[in-house]
């Protein structure tokens, strides 16, 4: 290797030029690092289509190799396989194997090394795939199965679990691992501890890379919120906006004045009139400029509707049916940067400021998930003497917004990072291995399956009277949804892949017809899952 490097450095050969040119290509484009991931396939999967090699180990010691994948259909394995005897001296072709004769199975697939890819890609493109946070993995799930999107964080509140946050939403695959920061509405208990329960309430495998508690010190009249990049912002002197109106002209001031659960949703007419040229809705907000101040903070309380869930699970992946596996394995590699760019431009919420001539984008809020309300503050520079005019634009009906206000004062508070000192499994037993997996953002992940939960505990000490303190949780990871049998049945291979804008339009049209039913079902599901 050293000799090769020496030759490349010293020589003026064609090889040198090609290699240097390739290096230039790496810098200009995105490079993706892979490894082969071997994973056991659980017997709890109902139906599963796998299009990568699979080995099934039978009770009698024989092995069946499915080189092009296999369909697990309820009680049988179906697909072209070769069965090898215990000693491998004989082999026969098989197409159907009863599941009750199988004692173990594993799949082999190409996995993206998220950290390495992210480092190189971020260096190369300056934007980073992680921040975009989305691409689907292996999913064709049924409608109801797709409601969950990420780990949910709960804290004890007067004897009941209160939902605090949901982490790394829409990060469907390792290449899109990202870090989220959410405000926690809790205080330390009498022993100076913070206890948080992290649940996998969805039909997915979640990979938690890092959990971190952040403690922000501030004065009693300040509220600490994460900004769009996850950095803490202490805000005070909150004022309601003088104008809040959406694209259809509705006056939203009363609806969005207080955080009361009564939330904005896109006007039905705007949603129905979505077209290739009009995929967005917008909210226009105006506040008086603070005397002498050069910035204010826009304070938002919001969460996603189920539109993004429908877009990714039912349109982008669902239309590919069984091909979604291949798409993820192959096209994802080439298409990930394009999808990331599309998301940056199209999804989430874009915040723009009127400078007297036009709106200039100043920030973008990532999609945060449909479960937990997210409180966010965005610093807004004051560009005009008399007023601050802000436009929030987003795919029609992508957001539920509970509150919009302006903070006349904002500053960066001192933030202390605290490690979780204990991780307890569902039975309350300490698990030091799992704790090590989430202590650092590294190659170790804590993997959870549907229904699993764990508790993390941090010693934060009892609070002094002043200054006040607010806790935030940082979660980093990704998840891989499971395949539900309803989804497999409903999936269809469409062959040609349309543009992502066309996919969004398709999702908007479908969403317009199902949103009432879906939101009602989702609300009912929420009542069931909050324990």
């Amino acid at each position, binding site marked *: 290797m050293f000799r090769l490097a020496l030759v490349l450095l010293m020589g003026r050969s064609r090889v040198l030029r090609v290699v240097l040119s*390739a290096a230039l290509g790496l810098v*200009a484009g995105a490079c993706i690092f892979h490894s082969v991931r071997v994973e056991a396939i659980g017997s709890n999967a109902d139906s599963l289509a796998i299009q990568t090699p699979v080995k099934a180990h039978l009770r*009698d010691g024989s092995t069946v190799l499915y080189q092009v994948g296999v369909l697990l259909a309820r009680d049988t394995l179906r697909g072209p396989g070769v069965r090898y005897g215990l000693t491998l001296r004989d082999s026969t072709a098989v197409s159907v194997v009863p599941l009750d004769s199988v*004692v173990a199975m594993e799949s082999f697939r190409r996995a993206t090394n998220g950290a390495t890819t992210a480092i190189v890609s971020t260096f190369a493109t300056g934007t980073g795939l992680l921040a975009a946070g989305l691409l689907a993995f292996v999913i064709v799930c049924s409608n109801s199965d797709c409601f969950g999107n990420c780990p949910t964080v709960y804290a004890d509140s007067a004897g009941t679990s209160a939902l605090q946050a949901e982490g790394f939403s829409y990060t469907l695959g390792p290449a899109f691992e990202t870090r989220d920061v959410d405000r926690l509405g809790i205080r330390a208990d009498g022993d100076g501890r913070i206890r948080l329960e992290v649940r996998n309430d969805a039909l997915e495998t979640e990979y938690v890379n890092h959990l971190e508690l952040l403690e922000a010190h501030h004065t009693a009249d300040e509220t600490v919120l994460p900004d769009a990049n996850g950095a803490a912002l202490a805000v005070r002197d909150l004022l309601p906006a003088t104008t809040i109106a959406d694209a259809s002209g509705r006056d939203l001031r009363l609806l969005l004045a207080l955080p009361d659960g009564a939330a904005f949703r896109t006007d039905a007419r705007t949603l129905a009139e979505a077209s290739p040229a009009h995929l967005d809705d917008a909210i226009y907000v105006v506040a008086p400029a603070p005397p002498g101040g050069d910035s204010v903070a826009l304070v938002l309380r919001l969460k996603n509707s189920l539109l993004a869930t429908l877009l990714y699970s039912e349109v982008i992946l669902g239309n590919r049916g069984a091909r979604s596996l291949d798409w993820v394995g192959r096209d994802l590699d080439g298409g990930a940067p394009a999808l990331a760019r599309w998301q940056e431009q199209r999804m989430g919420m874009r915040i723009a400021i009127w400078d007297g001539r036009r709106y200039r984008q100043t920030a973008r809020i990532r999609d945060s998930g449909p479960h937990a309300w997210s409180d966010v503050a965005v610093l807004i520079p004051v560009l005009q003497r008399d007023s601050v005019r802000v436009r929030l634009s987003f795919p029609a009906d992508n957001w539920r917004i509970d509150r919009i206000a302006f903070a006349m004062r904002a500053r960066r508070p001192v933030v202390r990072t605290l490690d979780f000192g204990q991780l307890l499994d569902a039975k309350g037993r300490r698990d030091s291995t799992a704790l090590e997996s989430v202590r650092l953002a590294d190659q*170790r992940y804590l993997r959870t399956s549907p229904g699993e939960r764990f508790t993390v505990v941090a010693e934060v000490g009892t609070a002094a009277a002043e200054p006040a303190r607010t806790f935030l949780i940082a979660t980093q990871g990704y998840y891989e949804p499971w395949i539900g049998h309803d989804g497999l049945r409903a999936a269809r291979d469409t062959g040609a892949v349309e543009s992502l804008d066309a996919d969004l339009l398709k999702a908007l049209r479908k969403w317009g017809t199902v949103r009432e039913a879906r939101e009602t079902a989702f609300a009912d599901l929420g009542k069931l899952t909050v324990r």
Partner: protein
Amino acid sequence: MRRCWVWGPVLALVGCHMGGRVDRFAPANGPEGVAVALELRRGGRAQGELLAVQDTALVVLAQDTVTLVPYGALETGEFSQVEGELRGTPPAPDFARRLRLVSRFPQGLTPDMLARLLAAYGQSALKVVAR
């Protein structure tokens, strides 16, 4: 010569992929377990196929002989296309899980399977490497 410089942008356009591929990963393409190279504490080396991973030992097929290699008898153990190596102590849980998944019998060897395997290789007993 100028054409050489084309390769960079071409790479950028098609995307660059580095690292392991499933079609080159031996356990994904055949029924065998991963290849293993062992250096024994008492001297000597052995190569073979990883049959099973147990709590205290590896079961290896080396020179057509089913062999039990206690971790304590190992100086080092390396596995083809698998990151990490053994150094005289049982593998950490995560490493053991990964090794098990690329062995020929991830489910473990039952007494009946082991008996049939020994019979197939003409052994009356399992060969055990001394510590």
